[in-house]
């Protein structure tokens, strides 16, 4: 089996030659190659080359074109601060001053901000890897993009003070993400993972998620499935236990769960959904190989009868992680 076949079989709870292992290696790929992070996040070719080199080193089952969480908001007018060897941060939100809620325009993915660089990276990865390895694009969730357009506090207060206007921006965000996600699938992504950090119960309560975000995520995933995504992958970090019950209705096929979510709870809540997780991200920086191997083996044991499991970290493996720790996780599935 190649990596893509292995992942697809696992997502569908079918027999595979081994458990897939997907290290959420984003900026760490740049660190490995000695490329400054700020160059990695601005150049699709560098990003693709770093991802390919990291794949060659670690031999895991997926590559990512996750750049940072500001691609879409930058394309819509937010001003970013690019700093040496760091992820970019938002200096000014696109909707921090005035905006006409009825005249918002979806950006052209071929021209706007760094969107073309993401598409370029996907084309390089697809022409190199073809259908051997899972190629993962990335879009934000509608709520997260909304918070990246307004600023998180302004967005959440708007949800309470002016829910109709808040929903208009959410719908706009959803349409932006559908457009960008479909462009990524056309460029070579097997699926765009949906990062929705602001939808975490650490930020909004589960009934807020159910009312505002779940219907938009469902629309997003429907569009991606129709557009050719091989599966729908939702990534909400933090204590997501209270919103897992909504995932099936939304159409999630792969559910990321973070280190603070009990795997037993995730399994019992989503018996027919593939789960990926959940080693603590900072453990790849602060712990050692035997810790990672031990935790990996515990997870593999827990999921051995159930299947539908991808060994991974709970969230991004920090750029500064120790390579030997990532290798330890990968070795766990191979021995």
């Amino acid at each position: 089996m190649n990596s893509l076949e292995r992942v697809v079989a696992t997502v569908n709870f079918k027999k595979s030659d081994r458990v897939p292992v997907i290290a959420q290696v984003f900026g760490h790929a740049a660190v490995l190659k000695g490329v400054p992070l700020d160059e990695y996040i601005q150049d699709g070719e560098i990003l693709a080359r770093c991802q390919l080199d990291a794949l060659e080193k670690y031999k895991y089952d997926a590559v990512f074109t996750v750049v940072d969480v500001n691609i879409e908001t930058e394309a819509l007018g937010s001003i970013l601060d690019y700093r040496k060897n760091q992820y970019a941060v938002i200096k000014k939100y696109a909707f921090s001053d005035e905006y006409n809620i009825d005249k918002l325009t979806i950006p052209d993915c071929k021209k706007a901000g760094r969107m073309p660089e993401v598409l370029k990276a996907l084309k390089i990865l697809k022409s190199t890897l073809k259908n051997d390895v899972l190629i993962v694009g990335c879009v934000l969730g509608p709520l997260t993009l909304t918070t990246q357009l307004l600023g998180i506090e302004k967005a959440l207060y708007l949800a309470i003070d002016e829910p109709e206007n808040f929903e208009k921006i959410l719908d706009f965000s959803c349409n932006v993400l559908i457009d960008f996600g479909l462009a990524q699938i056309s460029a070579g992504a097997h699926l765009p993972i949906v990062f929705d950090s602001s939808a975490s119960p650490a930020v909004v309560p589960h009934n807020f998620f159910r009312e505002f975000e779940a219907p938009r995520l469902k629309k997003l995933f429907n569009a991606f499935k129709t557009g050719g995504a091989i599966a729908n992958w939702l990534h909400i970090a933090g204590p997501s236990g209270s919103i897992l019950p909504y995932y099936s209705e939304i159409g999630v096929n792969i559910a990321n769960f973070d280190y603070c979510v009990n795997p037993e709870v995730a399994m019992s809540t989503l018996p027919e959904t593939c789960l990926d997780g959940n080693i603590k991200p900072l453990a790849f920086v602060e712990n050692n190989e035997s810790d990672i191997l031990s935790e990996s083996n515990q997870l593999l044991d827990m999921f051995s009868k159930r299947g539908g499991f991808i060994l991974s970290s709970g969230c991004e493996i920090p750029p500064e992680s120790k390579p030997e720790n990532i290798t330890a996780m990968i070795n766990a599935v191979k021995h």
Partner: protein
Amino acid sequence: MTHKKIDAFINYLLEGNCNESVTSAKELHNEGISKEQIILEGLEVAMIQLGAKCTVEQFNLLEIMLTGRAVMEVMKYLYPEGSIPEKTKGTVVIAALEGDVHDLGKNILKMVLTAKGYNVVDCGKDCTIQQLVDAAKEKSPFAIGISGLVTSIIPLVKQIRGALNSQGLNNIKILAGGAALKQSLKEQLNVDYIADSAFDGVHYLEEIRRK
């Protein structure tokens, strides 16, 4: 009658109703209730009730934000143009360090500390270690609160203790919180406490004040 009005005031705060909270605070003040009493018997009580509801399992950040916003509006009425209460429980300097993605966690801590009667010095987001140390030298806090959402700020957090000590500020406690910092240990971060939530952090500060 006043008790009923204070209870109503607390309810407005817990509902996050800014206008009614401020109106209610004005009425109480006009009836002779001191500013200090309004904080102690109104804002602080509201925060205690909210804190009791917000366990790790039942944490509702949005609810805290709404009450926090009402609290800050009441404080603006009581102490306009940046003036501070004559009596506070002490000064806490807070910051989000340079490179972090946003400072929501810090702002939540600010609201809770303010409602509990602390003087909060907010160094904002994108704060450098030097700015933090300068604020500590100038404002003489008994604690510093740092929130961190991304692991890339961890090397900065580790430097704070040494930077404070080099200026003779060894007695200042360092409180850390936020998604990235919560994954670590206080010994690793070189801080005094890692809080699960803003309320947990304030509980720690209340404890060390009593000692």
